């Protein structure tokens, strides 16, 4: 058996050279000093393969046109088994590649591994870094949610400021007017058709160059015997790859990547923000205004890229001993501090995203369809801790009966009696009377009559700001004049779709001084405190564009 196997391998090798090739690859001799510091290249290669794979998997369930892109991603996240994991791997894998590629670069830089004759390897590496960033920029648009859309608006506008080339960049990305189907198609084409083969080719070239010149030796290596790449260094690389993969996998499971509201070009309250690794650039832009803007958008980034590309030609000394490369270490530390400082400043100076724009649309969203009384009922439901004794998800009843389908068993009059005096409604009930006013109880009853097995999770999933907003809505009887989700008065305008018509600032000012914003309106002014105002406005801006069922 064994003999036959060896025979087979020999025959195969005779015809294809596979075995010899693999042996040559694996038993490559590397300097004795090689070790743990050189694992990052392998990790980066592994991560890019993970991106190729998860990207292809996502493409199996993804429709690359705006609108459909959003609903298909939502389908992946909510309906496809392991879809959230696939997306998580692809999303966090992208961030992780940036981290690893930078670490790889820092290592090569500190060890002076870019020096003669390895300048070409370094330059190819810099191009690969730029391609990695291009993946990030183009992939950012593909979910087609608000975050994707507005982030890309900023990116393409930066592209447009490039002197001379600007208009051509805009035309290339089809972003001269609004960002629409054509821009989307260009970004998608770049992301999945052009960048991957370019990356593959350059990686092959990069690895070929590494092999051609051999792994860069450290001082003293010439006196020590060389060792084999396999299995000792392969072992180290594998351990590093495994650690990276474990972190990635845990992040993909534990850190939920939200899907925001579908891209809405009319949303004026959205604060665009780039991916974390671009924040430093974003912050740099803020320093340069007016005619100097181009310094931040084009001049500095170009200089930085040039400095990277030219590194091996600027630093031509032969010194490679890490301890003696104090200047190189200084450059790395300065770059790190600069990057960290700018990123921190960007995080600090950007106002927090409004609660309304942070809602995860890949989670349960049925609470959005509740009327204000029903949603205010959620507040009382939570306040009175109904869930301590009642189940709202089906399953085994707790001390009290399950509350789904209450409407099939009871009416509002019964519920009113029940809440005030449980024993009067149900003989022998051990439930405590609910201490709320009649008005408050009406809201709770509205919720009770709304609950069904299909929407029971609203009690858990409705975000606090929306519940608080609905409560304020009820307390101020906004529903006397305004309709929300099909319930309420007809004197004032319907509030569904408010986000499409008005900005956050407009709504706030309108509350404070209605006549200033819309003259002749009979609406009285409302002086909410700032928390209440925030909750109320966020709630109103989260309302569905149309009342459910319309």
């Amino acid at each position, binding site marked *: 058996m064994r003999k036959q196997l060896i025979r087979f391998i020999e025959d195969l090798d005779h015809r294809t050279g596979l075995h010899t090739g693999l042996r040559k690859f694996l038993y490559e001799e590397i300097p004795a000093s090689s070790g743990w510091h050189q694992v990052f290249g392998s990790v980066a290669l592994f991560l890019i393969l*993970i991106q190729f794979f998860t990207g292809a998997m996502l493409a199996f369930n993804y429709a690359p046109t705006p609108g459909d892109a959003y609903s298909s991603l*939502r*389908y992946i996240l909510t309906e496809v088994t392991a879809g959230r994991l696939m997306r998580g791997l692809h999303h966090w894998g992208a961030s992780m590649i940036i981290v690893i590629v930078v670490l790889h670069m820092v290592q090569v830089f500190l060890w002076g591994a870019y020096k003669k004759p390895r300048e070409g390897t370094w330059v190819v590496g810099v191009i690969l870094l730029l391609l990695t960033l291009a993946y990030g920029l183009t992939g950012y648009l593909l979910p087609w949610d608000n975050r994707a859309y507005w982030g890309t608006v900023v990116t393409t506008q930066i592209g447009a400021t490039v002197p001379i080339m600007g208009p051509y960049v805009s035309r290339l990305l089809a972003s001269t007017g609004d960002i629409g189907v054509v821009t989307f198609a260009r970004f998608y084409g770049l992301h999945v058709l052009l960048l991957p083969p370019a990356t593959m080719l350059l990686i092959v070239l990069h690895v070929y160059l590494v092999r051609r010149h051999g792994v860069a030796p450290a001082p003293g290596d010439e006196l020590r*015997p060389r060792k084999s790449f396999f299995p000792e260094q392969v072992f180290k690389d*594998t*351990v590093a*790859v495994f650690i990276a*993969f474990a972190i990635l996998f845990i992040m993909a499971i534990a850190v939920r990547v939200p899907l925001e509201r579908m891209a809405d070009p009319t949303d004026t309250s959205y604060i665009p923000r780039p991916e974390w690794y671009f924040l430093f650039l974003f912050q740099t832009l803020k320093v340069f205004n007016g005619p100097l803007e181009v310094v931040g958008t084009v001049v500095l980034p170009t200089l930085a890229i040039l400095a990277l590309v030219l590194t091996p030609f600027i630093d031509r000394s032969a010194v490679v001993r890490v301890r003696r490369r104090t200047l190189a270490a200084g450059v790395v530390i300065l770059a790190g501090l600069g990057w960290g400082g700018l990123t921190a400043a960007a995080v600090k100076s950007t106002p927090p995203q409004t609660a309304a724009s942070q809602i995860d649309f890949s989670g349960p969203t049925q609470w959005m369809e509740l009327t204000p009384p029903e949603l205010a009922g959620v507040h009382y439901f939570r306040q009175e801790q109904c869930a301590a004794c009642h189940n709202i998800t089906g399953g085994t009843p707790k001390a009290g009966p399950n509350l789904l389908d209450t409407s099939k068993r009871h009416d509002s009059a019964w519920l009113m009696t029940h809440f005030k005096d449980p024993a009067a409604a149900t003989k022998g009930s051990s439930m405590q009377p609910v201490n709320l006013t009649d008005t408050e109880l009406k809201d709770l009853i509205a919720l009770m009559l709304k609950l069904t097995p299909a929407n029971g999770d609203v009690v858990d999933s409705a975000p606090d700001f929306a519940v608080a907003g609905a409560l304020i809505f009820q307390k101020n009887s906004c529903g006397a004049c305004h309709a929300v989700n099909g319930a309420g008065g007809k004197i004032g305008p319907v509030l569904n779709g408010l986000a499409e018509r008005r900005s956050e600032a407009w709504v706030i000012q309108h509350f404070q001084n209605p006549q200033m914003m819309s003259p002749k309106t009979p609406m009285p002014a409302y002086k909410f405190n700032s928390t209440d105002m925030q909750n109320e406005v966020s709630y109103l801006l989260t309302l569905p564009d149309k009342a459910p069922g319309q």
Partner: protein
Amino acid sequence: MAEQNIIDTGEAEVYGSTRRAFHLAVVYVLGALIGLALAIPTILYLLVPPKTRKESGWIDAGDVSQLTSGIPVELSFQENRMDGWRLVTEKKTAWVVKEPDNKVVAFGPQCTHLGCAYHWEMQSGKFMCPCHGSYFSIEGKVLDGPAPRPLDRYMTKIENNRLQIGELKQSSPAA
């Protein structure tokens, strides 16, 4: 094979066969773990049917009082269905037969052989599939041809003389 390389370089003491075996074992085990952690979710991702929100419910297909017992009629109706991430409205048809006892049966419009559209032949009083010559009785039973099982039936109910059509149930070959 590989040992020679290493022993030749006189590194045997530094990089002995025990360490080598350990390194190899770790490489294989960690590699396998990564492979499994990717393969299992991928299989689930590709093969488990998505939890599609079923647009269950009855669809109105028309007035049954117009039907004549023993004469099948092809009725069409609109069905809303989730096609992946899309809600699609489709025109669907059913061959509807009123039985002598006033019960109404609705057959799926495709031949159980290879899915061709069959039709009712008035002269012979049979359903006939033009593709490969399968014949079905008015009860949907296979009379002739390659069809492996009787015609599939929709779930039906009658409300206020209107035919309500539900899910299409696949027939069993035994019948």
